[in-house]
């Protein structure tokens, strides 16, 4: 606790200009990552989780994107103020990133070996021979058989799982202090996903690299991370240690997510979905972004955007009320009854009106 965090994101604000207006993709996001820790970022498409990670790498396409405010403190330096050439010394060297689809981040016309040794020579000042030896070590470390031969293959000669291994090897090439993994297993089959997750877990213990693990899969988060932040509509809505978050979720959205996924070890006969759709990030409102879908919604939720507040030791949630998972069913039934009452009243109005005329 005494040690300063490796990465500290403070009040990050990212906007995208579109034809329909300004989209606030990331809204006042703050979190930190300690050395050697694995932080999970959970959210659905459009929640801002990928934009957040791209901002840390300063890879937001600009225009239309723009970091409109906040700080990204990496080892004490504010990356937001860094020039492009300063960032290039950080990227792939001290912070590296692996993506969902390795094919798009590998150059299809260059041999794997060439792509790996290039950054080693650039960042680590190795000779061609040293770099090649290091590349062979890295490939064998990520479990690629016959690494000295495969080094001369092109990306398309690798299977999806193998390609992701290559990406991980490249990500770890310069011993980064922080590795950002953006949905690294989403495109893979379950058995291959298991291979990759096992690999990442092993490497984490061996190298002590801090990892930001971005995913929509709560199962993967449960097995991989020490701490989790949940994002919704461009905001952090809950943050806690992984054990605490799964045992005692305190934000209705997190509760909703946990209730809506079928579990392999569960015996649910019926899922409890989150009704409705994620909000449009174009509109600026001061209500809670989750209010329209929330089973716990109160009057106050429509006029005040909740900010993160402490709900338990080392556990913050963006909800105005102290709620917990067990109350949900009761609240949901109450809400449905209220909505039904409103509908009934409207129907009666219509009927009365028809009779009158």
């Amino acid at each position, binding site marked *: 606790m005494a040690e300063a965090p490796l990465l500290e994101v403070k009040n990050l604000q990212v906007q995208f200009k579109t034809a329909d207006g300004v989209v606030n993709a990331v809204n006042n996001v703050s979190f930190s990552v300690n050395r050697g820790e694995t932080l999970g970022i959970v959210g659905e498409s459009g929640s801002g989780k990928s934009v957040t990670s791209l901002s840390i790498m300063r890879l937001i396409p600009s225009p239309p994107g723009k970091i409109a405010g906040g700080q990204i403190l990496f080892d004490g330096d504010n990356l937001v103020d860094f020039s492009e050439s300063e960032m290039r010394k950080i990227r792939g060297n001290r912070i590296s990133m692996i993506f969902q689809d390795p094919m798009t981040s590998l150059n299809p016309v260059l041999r794997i070996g060439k792509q790996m040794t290039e950054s080693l020579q650039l960042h680590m000042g190795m000779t061609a021979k040293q770099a090649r030896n290091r590349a062979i070590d890295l490939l064998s470390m990520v479990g690629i058989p016959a690494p000295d031969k495969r080094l001369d293959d092109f990306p398309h000669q690798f299977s999806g799982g193998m390609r992701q291994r290559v990406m991980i090897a490249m990500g770890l090439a310069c011993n980064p202090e922080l590795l950002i993994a953006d949905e690294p297993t989403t495109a893979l089959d379950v058995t291959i996903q298991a291979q990759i997750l096992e690999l990442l877990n092993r490497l984490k213990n061996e190298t002590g690299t801090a990892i930001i693990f971005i995913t929509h899969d709560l199962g993967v988060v449960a097995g991989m991370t020490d701490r989790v932040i949940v994002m919704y509509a461009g905001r952090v809505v809950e943050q806690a240690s992984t054990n605490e978050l799964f045992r005692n979720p305190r934000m209705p959205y997190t509760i909703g997510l946990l209730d809506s996924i079928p579990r392999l070890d569960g015996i649910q006969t019926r899922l409890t*979905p989150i009704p409705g759709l994620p909000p449009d990030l174009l509109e600026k409102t001061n209500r809670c972004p989750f209010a329209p879908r929330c089973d716990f919604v109160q009057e106050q939720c429509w006029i005040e955007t909740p900010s993160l507040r402490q709900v338990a030791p080392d556990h913050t949630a963006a909800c105005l009320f102290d709620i917990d998972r067990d109350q949900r069913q009761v609240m949901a039934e109450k809400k449905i009854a209220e909505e039904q009452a409103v509908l009934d009243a409207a129907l009666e109005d219509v009927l009365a009106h028809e009779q009158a005329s």
Partner: protein
Amino acid sequence: MATASNVAGTNPAQAQEFTRPVRSLWSDAWMRLRRNRLAMASIIYLFLLALVAIFAPVIAPHSPGRPTTTELRERGVYRQAAWVVDEKNPKRSGIWKFPLGTDSAGGDVLSRLIYGTRVSMVVGFIPMIFTLTIGITIGLISGFAGGKLDSLLMRFTDIIFSLPDILFFIIVQTAFSQTAFGKTFNGLLLIFLSFSAVNWASVSRLVRGQVLSLKEKEFVEAAEAVGVRRGSILFRHILPNTLAPIIVAGAFIVPSAIVTEATLSFLGIGIQPDTNPNNPFPTSWGQMILEGKSAIDSQPWILIASAIAIASITIAFVALGDGLRDALDPRQ
């Protein structure tokens, strides 16, 4: 049971959903096109040119035909544009009655330019319609039928595609321009046909490619799965989805046809000039460039005016084509 809150729209936050007007992909594209200033300027310019072409007899200050002897005396030949003063030869000095001067036969250059718009317009649009009709038909059949018929049609298309087109036009023009058929509409019909005969190949390749990729789309599979007949699948599901790239291709065919006609006329094998004042297509810009080239020293404005006319109409169509592509295919 599905609860009331599951029904999209009953939520107060989604109330605005109801007030939004319906937007088809076409209306979306039109909105994007309207935001493109260059494309809109082109549309306005081309619209004006179309008016000029239609109302040429009203707009043109003089008849495009051969002047009478008295008229010729007033006009002179190779009279300079109105703002050019020729002190050595007052008969050549520009006067505002003939703003762009006169040509070798005493024809008013501005009037000829105005009538020339007609040729460029029909020579742009009619071959486009022929080209698209042939290209779409062959592309649709080839892509949808597949198999042997597809191979056969595509080999044929490849042959047409590999023809050197300018050489082909020159051969056709020299072979047929003196026949009765070649003289129909001052030879315009021959140009239409020879242009279309070569250029459909690229359209049919485009359409076939579209059909092949659409055939694999799940919505086509879905139509098949609910029992929609093959004809309906082709015309209701596949054809409407190929239209966007076809429209863009069409917009680019027009300037290429205009330039082709100008090229052929410049080579002296395009449309045949006619001095009959009742002929709706007495002259073309390509011809004027040819004449202007030989009169470049005595009356440069024949060349300059017609070159500007061709360049501007071509640029306008290309800008419109680009605008349409951006509007119809907003993936970038």
